[in-house]
């Protein structure tokens, strides 16, 4: 058995099969259980290690296979990513049962995750850009809703992601002769410009982030949430691979200064726009912009290992917040004609659990104490403060924007006439899923040490950065 077959081939094949399963909830249960199993397997059975299964037989999962002359390899260092990504995948697929579209999410979601995992495994890593593009194309089928013409956000999502591919590939081809160091500054400069453009498109860096709020406004919040919790994470991992691979990037102080400025500008733009926004869906998009910006700021910290830990630590709290928020928004979207504030006014009396989900998730992403994102935000804020007042101020303003958006959202949702009766109109399954998400945000926030065992192998994943 080889790891690429188990964590890439099988989920991709199952994704195709799930499209043929007759009932939506069967597809979701099958997909969710399989994703959870893969996450657990990654946790319990690291690759290239012989395991004695119940004293009956020995099992060893080979990390590498060869495909068309190239290596596809999931080393033990990738264990952390596999556990996280398939765990998060299971969480989203099970959540899909509460809000509809379960089959589309289970089938195409599993296929996307498999392709994104392959992007981490392929050698040379440059080819990851093409695999990420494959996942983007699958995402188009997830995001487009039947009977509704594709909106501007979806078209821009497709265009921007597709444009990133040739820029990154071309830069990689140029750099293939500059493996060791900057022997040819001209080529390095050209490649750096192309790479910068490619990643600006891929990661939705300001000002190329306009599609995010548009997409969040037009498409199903739950599908958008899934896309936003997986794609930027893998795009960032891909970017980290570049930093890890090329010494001239890794050792350039100017690069990290630019990265920090760009990251904080992106976060600030998202936070400010979120504070003034009057559409709950678009706020979701802006919050994602803030998250992307802060992830870039984390990578730019002078203590590179701390930056990596923050990036990886963020993955689960962010997925929890996105998941709970997206599910709550999906419930509200079914109850109101759209997610504009004037349509949502007073819905808290009829949908209190969904209202709680929206409020707590947004507050968590804002970095409120006791909630999941707080420990990691605090670490990042400390790191930025050590570099000066201005970076810390920018981050503070970005978070403040999300706090204001959260309070405005709560105010609108609770603004109902005096004698409106309280009701629970969410389905029992929706109530349970949102409540579990909210509770998990508190638990993860109160017990941040949960991530320590997972982060042990992090240095192996990016051996050069962590030195």
């Amino acid at each position, binding site marked *: 058995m080889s790891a690429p077959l188990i964590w890439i081939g099988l989920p991709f094949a199952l994704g195709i099969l799930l499209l043929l399963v007759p009932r939506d909830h069967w597809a979701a249960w099958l997909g969710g259980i399989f994703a959870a199993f893969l996450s657990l397997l990654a946790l319990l059975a690291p690759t290239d290690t012989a395991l004695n299964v119940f004293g009956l037989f020995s099992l060893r999962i080979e990390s590498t296979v060869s495909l*068309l002359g190239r290596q596809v390899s999931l080393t033990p260092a990738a264990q952390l990513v596999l556990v996280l990504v398939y765990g998060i995948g299971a969480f989203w697929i099970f959540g899909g049962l509460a809000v509809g579209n379960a089959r589309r999410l289970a089938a195409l979601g599993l296929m996307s995750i498999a392709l994104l995992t392959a992007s981490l495994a392929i050698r040379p890593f440059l080819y990851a850009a093409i695999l990420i593009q494959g996942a983007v194309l699958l995402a188009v089928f997830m995001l487009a809703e039947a009977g509704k013409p594709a909106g501007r956000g979806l078209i821009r999502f497709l265009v921007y992601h597709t*444009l990133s*591919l040739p820029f990154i590939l071309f830069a990689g081809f140029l750099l293939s002769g500059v493996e060791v160091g900057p022997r040819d500054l001209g080529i390095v400069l050209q490649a750096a410009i192309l790479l910068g453009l490619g990643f600006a498109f891929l990661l939705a860096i300001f000002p190329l982030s306009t599609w995010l709020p548009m997409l969040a406004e037009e498409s199903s919040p739950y599908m958008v949430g899934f896309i936003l919790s997986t794609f930027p994470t893998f795009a960032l991992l891909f970017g980290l691979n570049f930093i890890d691979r090329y010494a001239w990037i890794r050792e350039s102080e100017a690069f990290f200064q630019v990265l920090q400025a760009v990251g904080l500008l992106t976060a600030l733009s998202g936070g400010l726009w979120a504070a003034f926004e009057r559409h709950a869906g678009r706020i979701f998009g802006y919050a994602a912009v803030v998250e992307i910006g802060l992830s870039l700021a984390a990578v730019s910290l002078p203590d590179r290992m701390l930056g990596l830990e923050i990036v990886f630590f963020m993955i689960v709290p962010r997925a929890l917040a996105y998941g709970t928020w997206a599910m709550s928004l999906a419930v509200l979207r079914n109850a109101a004609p759209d997610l504009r504030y004037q349509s949502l006014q007073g819905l808290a009396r009829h949908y209190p659990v969904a209202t709680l989900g929206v409020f707590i998730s947004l507050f968590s992403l804002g970095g409120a104490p006791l909630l999941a994102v707080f420990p990691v935000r605090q670490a990042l804020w400390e790191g930025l403060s050590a570099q000066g007042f201005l970076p810390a101020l920018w981050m503070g303003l970005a978070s403040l924007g999300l706090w204001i958006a959260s309070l405005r959202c709560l105010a609108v949702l609770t603004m109902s006439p005096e004698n409106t009766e309280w009701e629970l109109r969410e389905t029992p399954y929706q109530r349970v899923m949102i409540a579990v998400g909210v509770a998990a945000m508190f638990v993860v926030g109160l017990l941040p040490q949960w991530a320590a065992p997972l982060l042990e192998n992090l240095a192996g994943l990016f051996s050069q950065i962590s030195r």
Partner: protein
Amino acid sequence: MIELLHWLAAILVLFTSIVLLLSRDWRWSLVVLALQYLAIFPLFLIHWPLTMSAAKLVTGWMAAAILGITLNRQADVVPVRSNRIFKLVLALVVAGTVFQGASVLGEWMPTAGLPLALAALMLIGQGLLQLGMTVEPFRATLGLLTTLAGFELLSSPLDNSVLVAALMAAVTLGLALAGSYLLTLQFEPAPEVVE
């Protein structure tokens, strides 16, 4: 003789990329797209073996066919919103910039050759122009296919890996499929709500 063929191909690319931008009839657009893939075929042959170049040609034609089949079933008219003269002026501005850029590119990548550089930059420039002027799925797909073809042509002197060529062919077909799916949504009536 071969050099002349390369120049003819580059001139054909110049023509097709501008016509693709100006064309209002989807049938003509797809014919021109197919011609465009035919034109870049001899340019790929400069650095790639015949089989890989032919795969690129066939993939492009298949992409055009996928879009054609979808539109044939769905609609006679694909909406176009902007003025042709305005587009032509912009296309000529881009063409002028490309002529300047191609000579600079020749210095960066001397192995590429001027016809290839000219054709590749023209495809990238006109493709990006197309993308900048539309949010229609059909036009956006044409723009993406054109831009991607330009980048692939430009990178052909740098990389001739079979795996990359195969994956890029899959991306081209995937783009055509995604584009045609979005087109079906554009023309599909909204499902009736059952009370």
